[in-house]
């Protein structure tokens, strides 16, 4: 089996109702999640870390990496459990509870594994991991994948793209805020208010992607 056939088999899982794998659909999901429906700037998911961790470029990159990592794992775990445990047993109403437990325990697990096997990575991502449980972007992407009836493969692509979109917004914001440190901001707008105004300006820019991909 060639890699492309394997990919196509995963992407068109029978549960999903997706006709078949197509590059066009994949590109639409990727561009959609990164630019058109950017998680932070147009869906308003993950605003707290976006405002809290965007003061420095280094920490923004660290947080972004941690979010992408956990997002993919959470999507994998929640998709498999939803379609293999909840749906066959008709317990779909337990979705919210199940997903939040999956995410909380995944974060704990990742933290412990990293601490044991990769102390360097743990030092880099460690302080951001506990914050991620209450990051609504993670639960958001897990729920959106189910709501949009995506297959496992598309869900994983969607979660990677959503994580990249989040990181992009965070890194851009951090760059802008580092520049703002030296500029002359009106006293009453210092801190959070100016951060919101910058986010608004960025959001206008991202609105320009709306026509992309139809």
């Amino acid at each position, binding site marked *: 089996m060639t890699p492309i056939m394997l990919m196509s088999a995963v992407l068109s899982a029978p549960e999903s109702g997706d006709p078949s794998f197509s590059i066009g659909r994949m590109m639409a999901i990727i561009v959609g999640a990164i630019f058109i429906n950017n998680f932070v*700037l*147009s*869906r*308003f*998911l*993950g*605003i*707290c870390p976006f*405002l809290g961790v965007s003061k420095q470029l280094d920490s923004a990159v660290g947080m972004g990496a941690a979010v992408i990592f956990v997002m993919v794992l959470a999507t994998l775990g929640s998709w498999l459990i939803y379609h293999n445990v909840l749906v066959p047993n008709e317990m779909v*109403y*337990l*979705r*919210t*509870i199940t*997903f*939040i*437990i999956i995410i*909380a325990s995944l974060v704990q697990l990742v933290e412990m594994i990293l601490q044991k096997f990769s102390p360097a990575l743990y030092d880099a991502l460690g302080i951001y991991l506990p914050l991620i*449980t*209450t*990051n*609504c972007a993670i*639960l*958001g992407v897990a*729920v*959106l994948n189910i*709501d949009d009836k995506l297959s496992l493969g598309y869900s994983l692509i969607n979660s990677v793209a959503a994580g990249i979109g989040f990181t992009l917004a965070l890194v851009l914001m951090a760059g802008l805020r580092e520049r703002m440190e030296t500029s002359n901001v*009106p*006293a*009453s*707008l*210092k801190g*959070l*208010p*100016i*951060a*919101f*105004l910058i*986010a*608004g*300006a960025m*959001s*206008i820019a*991202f*609105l320009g992607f709306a026509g992309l991909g139809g």
Partner: protein
Amino acid sequence: MSLAQEFTKGIVKENPIFRQALGMCPFLAVTSSVENALGMGAAATFVLVCSNFLVSLLRKVIPASVRIPSYIVIIAAFVTIVDLLMNAYLPALHKSLGIFIPLIVVNCIILGRAEGFANKNKVISSLFDGIGMGLGFTLAMVVMATFREILGNGSWLGFNLLGEAYQNQPLLIAILAPGAFILMGFILGFFNIMEKRNRGGAR
């Protein structure tokens, strides 16, 4: 602190949105119309009051080491109840709030009150704290939604305020995503000015 104080502190002095900047995601996302803001406020207040009640009731039973996961499960249970009730009785509102109903679980206000207040205080004061914080959250959302709906659609709670001519060419950006960020920036800036003025007057 008296019960009345527990109740009012959430509305003005410790307003979760304008004072503590908690729960920003639903606040920015659902304030594009007053109706959505009221719906979200009601749902969040219900979950907040119920979770405060149960957490306070169980505060001596839950071991400290597993308290956060327990709170999250309690909150998620009430969110599921709200989700199902809204889907059954208010399907249109449920649809327009969409993903933000399940996301009440990760609203920092609710976990913050469970951890910061309900697990240390009696059931009655936790209930009043929950109602006050919930109303403060709702009030903040309604204020924001009022600005956004009037500017962006010329109406308030669906009533046409500014007439046909405005509605044909409204300031559309106010109900789009950037409007939420920009208006929030100006509102917080306004609060900073007021605070400075108050402090100046006291001196």
